[in-house]
């Protein structure tokens, strides 16, 4: 290797370092590879890669199962809200447990006690993965209930005039072979900009 090369490498590396942390000028040449799209943080399931390990595959399957349980629970709650009934159906118990199940039933009780029925479905804007600890998974879901109407027994529109967009931190726990949503912490939001689950 020629004597001048080490100096070239050092200068090159310094320039590259500056460029990678946007710390100095002049800017170096553009990269050889095209600028990629930012990685998705929504619920798209990545396909298995040839280098996927046991743990990566297990994580992927667990996250998928947890998210499916959450979506199925919301779907069942929507169905029960349309019927105006607060029943712990097999589907609800299959997908929900502990504090989250109590919370879901309390919400449906509100409907049943008041004789309300809902029209329309919840919108899950996106679901992002927050963490995995073997028997427990953290998901963050952006939920939007803005399109849901609520009618009383006489058919009158009693939809509340309040914001109904939430960033929900969900805990999904493993019960035997089933994943069930077990807890929820909510944050009311005006929009989902900047939320990890926002599209």
């Amino acid at each position, binding site marked *: 290797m020629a004597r001048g090369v080490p100096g070239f490498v050092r200068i090159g590396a310094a320039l590259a*370092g500056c*460029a990678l942390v946007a710390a100095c000028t002049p800017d*170096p040449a553009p990269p050889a*590879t095209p600028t*990629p799209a930012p990685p998705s943080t929504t619920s798209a399931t990545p396909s298995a890669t040839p280098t996927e390990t*046991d743990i990566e595959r297990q994580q992927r399957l667990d996250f998928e199962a947890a998210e499916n349980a959450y979506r199925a629970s919301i779907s069942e709650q929507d169905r029960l809200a349309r019927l105006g009934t607060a029943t*712990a159906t097999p589907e609800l118990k299959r997908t929900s447990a502990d504090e989250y199940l*109590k*919370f879901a039933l309390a919400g449906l009780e509100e409907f049943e006690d008041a004789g309300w029925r*809902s029209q329309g479905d919840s919108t899950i804007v996106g679901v992002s993965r927050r963490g995995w600890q073997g028997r427990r998974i953290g998901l963050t879901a952006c939920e939007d209930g803005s399109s849901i109407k609520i009618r009383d027994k006489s058919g009158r529109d009693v939809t509340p005039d309040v914001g109904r967009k939430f960033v929900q931190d969900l805990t999904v726990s493993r019960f035997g072979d089933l994943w069930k949503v077990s807890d929820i912490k909510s944050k009311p939001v005006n929009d989902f900009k900047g939320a990890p689950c926002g599209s």
Partner: protein
Amino acid sequence: MRFMRFALAWIVAVLVVVVSPPTSSADPRGRCNLRTGTCQVASERKARLPAKELENGTRQTYRRSSARSDPDAERAEFDARMKAYADGRDRYYACVQASMAVSAGPQTLCSPGPPPPDDVFLQGRGFNGVGGGPAAPLITPGQAGAIAVARLRLPTVAPGIGPSPDLNRWNMAAVGYPLWLWADGPTQVGPVSDSVAGLSVSLQAKVSSLTFRMGDGTVVTCQGDGDEWTKSVEPGAKAPTCGHTYTKASLPKGTYTVTALTNWAVTWTANGQSGVINVPAVQTTELPVGELQVLVR
């Protein structure tokens, strides 16, 4: 005069109650219903449960046997459950560790073993860590420690990789550029207290090591929680304890899936005894890595 003062105080109290603004039903820490927009805040959570919910599997009840005939049998059952839990936990941890190795063995899933006996089991059988006597089987400090560790909710720690691709215009890490790796999040917990069957357990958790599977076939294992990269780091400086330099780009095909295994060492202390139980936690992130060409004139 005294009566006047009393009456005035009573009137003020009534006015305070009547004219106080309603408390907001939206609490960032509460549970909010997206259909009604109402939120259940911590102080308002009701203990009652709807009658229809009181079916098998939806509510835990404490079963207490009126005539506990054989405390030795209950003790044996408890010990067996604890052993099954501990064995399953150790197998699971070993499996997780092995799965992070470059040359992983046959493709098997790491299944968490059975959970430890919960409060329903313990209270239903009158397990009592203090006092005791022939009618109340004792729980050992080690068993209480294991149960408390299983209950402990550890914070989520994300894989810290710096400098972040977000800092440059190309949103990527670069081949040949040294990356710093660390545990991004709280890396110490406690001391916190728990009570298991009447026995007080103190817990303290700390990230003891990190293992990063970088997605390019490389595995990096570091003791401790790594060193966080900051903008004050000299460009191109290598991480002192935990880092990696990619030699091949992932772009334009895609990104490298970086899997980080955080090993938490949880120390339990109960009744003068202590021990350490390791708890693994895994997170992944996607990292685009490209090549950066530098022109020399």
